[in-house]
């Protein structure tokens, strides 16, 4: 039996597809002839078989370096922009890093890393490289505190869901995402753009939302993805008008009915879908019927993804999950049967499962467990509410109570605040157990969103 053929990103890129680009606010790079160009100053050969840290300020050079390194390096560790520098040494040791691709070569001069390669634009001409091996992709979890975990993937696992869906019909898509492509959610979109024969428009953390959307429109973005928090921000900004993507995707947080309905109203001609994925569990499934949650018959074995619910949390086994946590004291990523525990708590109502929160995000209210997301979903159903966050607050009487911060939709008359508060409370009382009803509702102008695009819950 001959060894299985190994595909790398370069094998999905060829000169036969014209007009493909990868762009950020400053630069647009043609993907059509990318294989005969280098962002690494022609030093790819030196990185063959190495364990490479990819530590760059911008997504554009990161993406170009991934294209070059995949199939050549032994492994590459992707660093999201918000990585705490204090954690870098420990992560490099755990990943066995022996080479760095950087835009700050001076910073690495005395670091003891033997091979430092500078990523630079404009691209230079080079001879196309041939895929040598299956490179291990190392990604970092986006946990709130402590050293992030290193999660090991292969390109085959990362692209399993994309390959399973098959090629898109119609013209090649122009993808965009509010995520950073060095995070799992963003990387999925980058890989979709590469595998689909399409283009990709990258985000930039320093760009105002209105300018970002103008750029998405100008570049003809047809497919776009973000977290529900990203989308709520866009809906609040009023910048969505005249932007008409064909496909709007949500992932990374619970997509509640309010945000799904809000997007359907803002983009009446788009298909709106939410996907379930995590850095560890990979892409589980996509839901395209416009409803929150997912059909109960998704459990079991479906398209090679096996799912079950144990102790309330969703467990996933498939070839798309990560294969291991990487590092000296790394815990097991799967149970003995190969299932990844997502830590996402689901609840069966009728013939559908609904996400009610994260196991680690449970707040304690007078000894009773409460998922803040469950409360937020009820608050968000009020037509004047754009976004909310529930959390616990200490109480001298019961130990803890639920309080909620709420952002009202644009243009809401402040004189109606009391009336809206009463309606939200009535809605909560009708749909939630009494200890889950917020004791206090505060109207706020903004809620913090983490660099990974998720509602900040640091004080939850």
């Amino acid at each position, binding site marked *: 039996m001959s060894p299985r053929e190994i595909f790398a990103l370069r094998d999905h890129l060829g000169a036969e597809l014209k007009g493909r680009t990868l762009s950020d606010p400053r630069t647009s790079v043609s993907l059509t002839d990318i294989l005969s160009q280098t962002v690494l100053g022609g030093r790819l050969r030196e990185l063959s078989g190495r364990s490479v840290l990819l530590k760059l300020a911008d997504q554009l050079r990161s993406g170009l370096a991934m294209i070059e390194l995949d199939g050549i390096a032994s492994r590459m560790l992707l660093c999201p922009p918000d990585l705490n520098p204090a954690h870098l040494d420990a992560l490099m040791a755990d990943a066995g890093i022996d080479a760095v691709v950087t835009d700050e070569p001076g910073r690495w001069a005395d670091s003891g890393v033997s091979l430092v390669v500078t990523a630079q634009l404009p691209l230079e001409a080079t001879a196309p490289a041939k895929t040598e091996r299956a490179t291990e992709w190392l990604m970092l979890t986006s946990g709130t505190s402590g050293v992030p975990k290193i999660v090991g993937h292969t390109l085959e696992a990362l692209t399993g869901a994309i390959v399973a869906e098959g090629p898109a019909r119609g013209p090649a898509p122009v993808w965009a995402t509010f995520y950073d492509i060095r995070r799992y959610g963003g990387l999925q979109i980058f890989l979709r753009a590469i595998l689909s024969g399409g283009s990709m428009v990258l985000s930039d953390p320093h760009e105002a939302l209105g300018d970002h959307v103008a750029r998405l429109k100008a570049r003809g973005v047809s497919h776009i993805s973000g977290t529900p928090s990203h989308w709520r921000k866009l809906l609040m900004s009023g910048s969505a008008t005249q932007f008409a993507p064909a496909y709007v995707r949500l992932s990374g947080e619970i997509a509640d009915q309010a945000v799904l309905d809000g997007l359907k109203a803002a983009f009446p001609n788009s298909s709106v879908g939410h996907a379930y994925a995590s850095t560890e569990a990979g892409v589980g499934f996509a839901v395209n019927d416009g409803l929150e949650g997912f059909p109960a018959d998704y459990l079991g074995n479906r398209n090679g993804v096996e799912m079950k619910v144990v102790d309330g949390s969703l467990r996933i086994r498939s070839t798309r999950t990560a294969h291991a946590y990487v590092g000296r004291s790394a815990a097991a990523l799967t149970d003995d049967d190969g299932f990844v525990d997502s830590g996402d708590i689901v609840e069966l109502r009728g013939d559908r499962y609904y996400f009610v929160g994260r196991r680690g995000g449970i707040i304690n209210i007078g000894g009773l467990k409460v998922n803040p997301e469950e409360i937020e979903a009820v608050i968000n159903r009020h037509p004047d509410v754009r976004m909310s966050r529930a959390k616990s607050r200490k*109480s001298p*009487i019961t130990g803890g*109570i639920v309080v909620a911060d709420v952002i009202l939709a644009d243009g809401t008359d402040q004189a109606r605040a009391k009336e809206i508060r009463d309606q939200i409370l009535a809605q909560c009382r009708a749909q939630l157990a009494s200890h889950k009803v917020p004791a206090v509702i505060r109207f706020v102008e903004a809620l913090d969103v983490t660099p990974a695009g998720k509602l900040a819950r640091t004080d939850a």
Partner: protein
Amino acid sequence: MSVRSKVIEAIRQIAKEQNVTLPELSDDLSLHETGFDSLAFAILVARLEDDTGVDPFTISEDAAFPATVGDFVRAYENVPA
């Protein structure tokens, strides 16, 4: 608005939300007789903290929880500025 009327108004508002029928709120009415459960009191204390800036039951280490409506109101009135 005086501290007393703020407290009384908050009690009435929460009673309405919780569907509690309040008896007449006299100073010597015991808190137990208001019909409020501990959750309702927790809501009351949290809202009054937002409204007045103080939580007399957390500030003072040896604060006994008041027994009557009058004690409760005085706990807010007697907070040192």
